[in-house]
């Protein structure tokens, strides 16, 4: 059962009708609905194309947060072989909002790290909806250092609403953990590539995405604050999230223009949630290309390139 977003309502109606028609035909063998159903399918296809042709920033946020969108775990299971999770920050706990471990990507050993949001109620709670605590960032730091020590490239998959705003998380140094994780990214003498697969939520995302190459999926978003948070501060009304999303310029397309994203990975028509396999494959290709590009570079060059990339950021702007 597809979960439709509010703006997909016209599509839901047409697809519903087509489905009804086919169900009717199944129970009544004499009926021939093939032509009619095909016409409806065609219409649905046109609507889908129209809807996704020019998604507003807020709609992009909705698509980026779609529950059926492939998550970190789906990418790891499909694209990475011999995934061997490595747990814990050696200090306090293991954070299930962050997956990470050794793995092979198309034969090459790598360290893969990512935020996992979970896919049903149980796993969402277990994963804390992809909101990491300090332990998550400290685990990531540990794994990045491991990669550095043994010369393995690091691949991070970013999908988080943001770092967890909780009492314990604050007491155990959420800010320090994020700052150290960003610092660890900058110190790596191995290739670090990052793909924003859904939501790039503020500091929680930067801590993994201070990378040599940052790719974003076509309908992913990356922002300093959620549109709802921004609306409640600047508009004094959380319901103004559409305006806030627009103003924040958080889409992959805008971030590519600003030089924050190095490339945009196309999603299948109607978003990643309509074709998980196709999306994961496209991300796999992008990871492969980025790793290829960076292979053979010296540790000094990688550190320097990462540094200069971030230092020079902000030279390009966007028109209204």
């Amino acid at each position, binding site marked *: 059962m597809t979960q439709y977003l509010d703006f997909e309502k016209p599509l839901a109606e047409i697809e519903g009708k087509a489905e009804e028609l086919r169900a009717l035909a199944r129970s009544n063998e004499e009926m021939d609905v093939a032509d009619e159903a095909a016409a409806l399918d065609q219409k649905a296809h046109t609507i889908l194309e129209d809807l996704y042709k020019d998604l507003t920033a807020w709609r992009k946020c909705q698509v980026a947060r779609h529950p059926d969108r492939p998550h970190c775990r789906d990418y790891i299971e499909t694209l990475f072989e011999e995934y061997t999770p490595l747990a814990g920050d050696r200090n306090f706990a293991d954070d299930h909002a962050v997956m990470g471990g050794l793995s092979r990507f198309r034969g090459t050993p790598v360290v893969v790290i990512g935020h996992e949001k979970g896919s049903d109620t149980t796993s969402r709670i277990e994963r804390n909806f992809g909101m990491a605590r300090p332990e998550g960032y400290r685990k990531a730091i540990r794994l990045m250092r491991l990669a550095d020590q043994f010369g393995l490239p690091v691949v991070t998959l970013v999908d988080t609403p943001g*770092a*967890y*705003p*909780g*009492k314990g*998380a*604050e*007491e*155990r*140094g*959420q*800010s*320090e953990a*994020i*700052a*150290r994780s*960003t*610092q660890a*990214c*900058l*110190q790596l003498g191995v290739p670090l590539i990052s793909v924003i697969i859904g939501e790039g939520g*503020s*500091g929680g995302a*930067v*801590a993994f995405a*201070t990378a040599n190459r940052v790719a974003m999926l076509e309908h992913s978003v*990356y*922002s*300093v*604050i959620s549109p709802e948070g*921004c609306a409640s*501060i*600047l*508009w004094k009304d959380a319901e103004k999230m559409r*305006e*806030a999303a627009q*103003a*924040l*310029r*958080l889409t992959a397309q805008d*971030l590519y223009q*600003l030089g*924050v994203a190095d490339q945009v990975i196309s999603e299948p028509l109607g978003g990643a949630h309509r074709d998980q396999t196709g999306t994961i494959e496209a991300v796999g290709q992008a990871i492969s290309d980025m790793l290829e590009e960076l292979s053979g570079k010296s540790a000094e060059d990688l550190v320097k390139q990462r*540094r200069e990339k*971030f*230092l020079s*950021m*902000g*030279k*390009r*702007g*966007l*028109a*209204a």
Partner: protein
Amino acid sequence: MNWITNYVRPRINSIFSRRETPENLWKKCDECGTMLFHRELSENLNVCTSCGHHMNITPRDRFNALFDGGVFVEVSVPEPQADPLSFRDQKKYPDRMKAAQRATGEKEAMLVATGEIGRTPIVAAAQDFSFMGGSMGMYVGNAIIAAAEEAVKLRRPLIIFSAAGGARMQEGILSLMQMPRTTVAVQMLKEAKLPYIVVLTHPTTGGVTASYAMLGDVHISEPNALICFAGPRVIEQTIREKLPEGFQRAEYLLDHGMLDRVTPRPQMRDELISITRMLLGLPPAIKGELPPPSDEPAQIEAPDSDGATPEK
């Protein structure tokens, strides 16, 4: 330059200007409500003389009190492009900027300067909470990078006084990118083996805490400063319970291992002199107010030993 311009005119001016100031002569302490005489308050660095509450202090006032003889040289900060996103909420970002500039008389939310403290040459940067909540955008990022580069160039320690609500939303993702950018600045200092001291002042929150403010060699905070990543209101909404007294305040962070020290503002200068000189392997400084440094190039040499006391 004669007797009339130097003495008579200021006297006449002061007689006239005095008439306009009465309402500014007294300031009420936000904490205990005591009425404080402005001169007494500013002499005590905006710390309430009755209850010890630390009120905000502008970077300029802070530097005047910090540097020997109040002498410092501003470090110029590369100007970023204005309004990179053409951002508009209920107001246009350039209009908010202009209003902040008018209200504070400053160009942006951070001041960088070089000078000496206890005859110890340093670079200092201070964030201005009164300028759009001290928020970190491109300019603040550039300021921190400029400060670090200056420190590396002159081989001096860097002291940053942080104060910010967080990132500047009006610069969107580019404000978030100041987290890695300022972290690069910290890296420059580490590689040059120069001390980097962070003085966290009220409030230091959000992306600022999660980057340069938490990466110091030494973290000192002013008493009762709010220091956090997520603010108390956001947390209360998330966990739906009341937070304990003093949660996310400096003393609480000290207890939880996130700070080295909590030091009242009037003692901060001596402590910074003492720490930087020890980290640099220099002999103890002469304590107390010093006249401005002479025009000779600054030298990190042993001061005269008479009266030098390292301890408070």
